[in-house]
């Protein structure tokens, strides 16, 4: 999705915090939700919000959202190839 010379704005007000989850932690997440990786919500490697993080397919991204109901909420996305 990211094109050549695209301007990235990872600190835009709409973009929540994205971070790569360590392998160890990823295993815990999978165990906690008792699910297969593909069953997680997906994100493309080329997503403008994570291209700067040095992600590769197979990583797990932790997203910390600001929430109107809970104040703060955590969401996970599994990085897939385009």
């Amino acid at each position, binding site marked *: 999705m990211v094109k050549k010379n695209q301007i990235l704005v990872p*600190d835009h007000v709409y973009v929540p915090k994205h971070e790569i989850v360590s392998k160890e932690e990823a295993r815990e997440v999978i165990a906690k939700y008792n699910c297969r990786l593909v069953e997680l*919500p997906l994100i493309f490697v080329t997503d403008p919000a994570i291209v700067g993080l040095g992600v590769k397919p197979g990583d797990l991204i932790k997203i910390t959202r600001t929430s109107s*109901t809970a104040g703060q909420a955590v969401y996970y996305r599994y990085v897939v190839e385009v």
Partner: protein
Amino acid sequence: MSFQSAKTIDGIRFSVWSPTEIRKYSVAEITAPETYDEDGMAVQGGLMDGRLGTLEPGQKCLTCGNTSARCPGHFGHIELAEPVFHIAFIDNIYKLLLMTCRSCSRLKIAQDDLDELARVMSREAAYTAVSQKRIPEMILEKARKAKECPHCGKIQYDLIFTKPTNFIEKTEAGENRLLPITIRSRFFQIIDADLELLGYDPTTARPEWFVLQALPVAPVTVRPSIILETGIRSEDDLTHKMVDIIRVNQRLKESKEAGTPPLIVQDLVDLLQYHATTYFDNEVSGIPQAHHRSGRPLKTLTQRLKGKEGRFRGSLSGKRVDFSSRTVISPDPDLDLSEVGVPLYIATKLTIPEIVTDWNIERMKKLVVNGPTQYPGVNYIIRPDGVKIRLDFVEDKQTIADSLEIGYKIERHLLDGDIVMFNRQPSLHQMSIMAHYVKVLPGKTFRLHPSVCPPYNADFDGDEMNLHVPQSEEARAEAILLMRVQDQIISPRYGGPIIGGLRDYVTGSYLLTRDDTYLTPAEFTNYAMLGNYNGSLPKPATKDAKGRPVYTGKQLFSLFLPSDFNYVMTSKWAKGTSGSKQDVVIKNGELISGVIDKSSIGAEESESVLHRIAKDYSNIQAKTFLNSILVIAKQFITHYGFSYGYSDLEMSEKSRAQILDKISDSYDIVDDFISQSKKNMLKTTRGLSVADSLEVYIVNELSKARDKAGNIADTSLDETNAGRIMATTGARGSSLNIGQMAGALGQQSRRGQRLLKGYNDRALSHYSPNDDNPDSHGFVKSNYRDGLSALEFFFHAMAGREGLVDTAVRTQQSGYMQRRLINALEHIRLEYDGTVRDPYGHIMQFLYGEDGIDVAKSDHGEAFNISRLIESQRIVDSGKKAGGEEISGVLKKYTKTFNPKLKSTVIEAVTSSNLSLAGIETVCKKGLDLYDRAKVEPGQAVGIVTAQSLGEPGTQMTLRTFHFAGIRERNVTLGLPRLIELVDARKKPTTPTMDIYLEESIKNDREKAIEVAKNVLQTRVSALASYEMDYKSEIILKLDRDVMADREVTAEDIELALSSNKKFKIEASESTIVLKFVEETDAPGALAIRNKVLNTTVKGVPSIERITLVQNDGEWVIQTTGSNLQKVLGIEGIDKRKVRTNNVLEIAETLGIEAARNALINELNSTLEDQGLEVDDRYIMLVSDLMCSRGHMQQIGRHGVAGSKDSVLARAAFEITVPTIARAALAGEIEKLRGVTENVIVGSNIPIGSGTVDLYMQVSKKR
């Protein structure tokens, strides 16, 4: 006891029948075109062959020997003389031909690449899930371009596909038609490995099977013949079509044997193809439809399955039921809120099965004696051996009654107190079907309490409703536990009451609770009794003029409030009147001041008295409260004698003159605007042209005129005026309505515009052309009371017509949106671990609504209302105020499980509450308890509730695209069209706009803002120059120096912008730029170049068409029409972090999927909010999360969420039925029956809500 073996379908595999299988399944080869002979016997080898199944009851099947009740029917087959294409697979045939070599039938891709793809395909790694799906597309793209086969090196030819069934190959020798037989032999060679790459399952679908050699003949049970009254047999459409096929097939076979010229044989083959095609699908484009003798198009296989009345949606997803009835509804205010009045006649037809026991046998016997005709009676008796006795024709009922034994089952009439389900279509939300208690009444209509109209959206102008009688104990238990009216008072859409007082109930309670309403003890006690009050009576509050003790109306109202109820609020009435503004104050269950109106007991009013009672006490208490209050209000207003009529609109001459004055003042102002614009002195607004600005000013002024007229009318009526009472209390109507009745009707509009056209330069032929008097464009000065002039009436009818069309279109559009939402979300449920998933395990949310709170059980969207808890504690609280440390200790203990937001609100409220330690402890304990109760339950159908919560308000939205909310506003798509656009995930919204914020340093500087704005606004050559052209050689651009100066563009800029175009040379001079064509062109070529030149962007951002500068809290913001996020981010001086656009897909591309989710939530929220519709955030979040869950934006519809469902049947039942099934067959898909639609189709329990729960039993290994 009888036992039924429980067979359940585990799954359904879809596949393509091979010719071998067709022949193997066949019980008879069908060769004869005749169906019956002269004696009326089925012809052996004909289409009605006895081996294909039975039709008549007595007949025995020649294949299986069963009678018609048990014989399932058997397939036969036709051997085709020449192979023909199966029309459902024609696209796959075309694609395969494009991809494979014409000689060796391998995919025209190098072996290395194929190996690579096969490797990707077989990769187990989960992150390739998406990329694997793209492989077939990639292969097609690559293979179709190959000029030479990489495997055998043969030259490939171009292929022409003429729809529907002709393939032509372009060889050097000329065009060569590919016959099915050649294609079949080519497909025969395709190797399995290649097919697997394309997503085929070669074990269930070989491509050569797409070419039919044998045609299955459906069993007769599928196409029964009917015998008309005249005794003539009439065959099914399918039989007719098969006859055609057999006839042509026969002729083809004969002519082939007879050695007829190939050209004629080919014609017959084409004819056979035509018949075979129309047999499968009679709506293929490109060929004529096959017709019945009567001229009606035949309904063949595809038509049977497709569409609303087709097999999937008409017979499988929607089934007909017994034990239901339907009739007109009418109101009965004397019923309980949760009752339904059932006509006696219906009560004797609908039955409930009841088992005879020791305890009820006497009662049952009496019922049996009454029989089916006398109410209450019995229609059927079912003996334990399963024999059903119909009592209609039983002479001696007493004997039957005496023979009744324990264990018998009787089907007795409906009785008072039975639970039934009551429903009104369209069933847009869960409150459209509620459980009521039966009250058998005389008459022929269903009776319901007027206050349950809002959830059903019912009125009594002829509406009909349906009633269903649950037949099992389980069904009744579920109805009572989940569906009763009282449990539906709180709407899950926004966590507030949807049921409440309306119309006269509101007026009645206002009249009752007014300050000057007094009741004698006799009246008071009567009303109290009506309201079912059975406590002790209070003391009369005052004495009347004669010194007799009297009660106040407020005292009567207070009787029904819980004694520890405290409440403060401003009533609607207090807001709407100029007089003394008294808040509604309820202290310890006593109404101290204020009046009770819609905001206290009304339907769809959050935070009302009713809402508080339902939430702080219980649903049952809310129901009894409502029942009592409403019946009293009704009785009170009946005795009071409240009416509204013509005389209530009478106004003084003075006020009438005032109204006319105000209108003519406004007319003067309008005239002024017009003359200003004629002199070209009018100040334009928001980048509009002079004419458009003028229109905006006029509309604005005229709407002011209407408001003024309405206000005068409104204020000239005193506060006891019935109309004003109704408007201010919220019972019915608004001051706008009163204004239109007594003041002036105001501007009539069409498509949000004044009535400007219709005839040449005028709206009606009665006016002179170009008349600019507001009268001639639909401003109505008259009111409804005085009546409209003929011309005004005409204008009014125009606007009225639009309103009708609007509602018709809206119901259609919102209905379809609802269907799509339901289809996309129906299978989504809450799992035991708190996640929201589809039945295949895909996670949509990790915690429902991010806080796990069920809106229906919440307090207006919050887990609980901490300030109400503290307030009620404060009254009983005693003792020393708790210290800071003590408080935080208690808080720590109780708020552990809370989410950050709830935690902080609770901590803040409790710390500043000044309660004692014990008090705080109780508050926290209660809070924690309420929090735990408000959580969603596992299995909850959160998807369906979400779809309903978004779909139902859709029906209430306006269709009008634009509105003028003042002069400064932009034109943006609003309401239903915008909502549809959002869930559609369109590439580009109809009205893209951006809000561009400026960098910190310049955000308060207007000059700098203008400078930035000029860099944002797109400036095309066409705006800067006029042109002259010579079609052969050149275009002369004449520069407009004024505009150029304004836009800060130099001639060099223009030259630079045009320099990239190589079709001409640029020669610049002082005031012109001449573009000399490099090659001589013709007129169309020159015009193309001209358009290109004029559209060239010289400055600014492409597609930003208009800009407006707006000041927000001192900060300048650039609002644009047109959106281009990526380019705008590159402009200097803007705050990149805050730039916004309403184009969600653009955000997904430039900021990522998470940003798109946030943007989508914002857009959905503001669209709904703008219409004044309250929808809880959690629903909007779930829809947005669903749409964004696959890494890109998916639409709610067949190309997105609904189309990517795992279930074949669910997809087929939604849209594009037949292609979906064909696709599933060639991929060998397996239907696992985990979702909702699938299970409805096969007739098993749906795995949602109480259907998720199952009993598992460990069978003991011993014994």
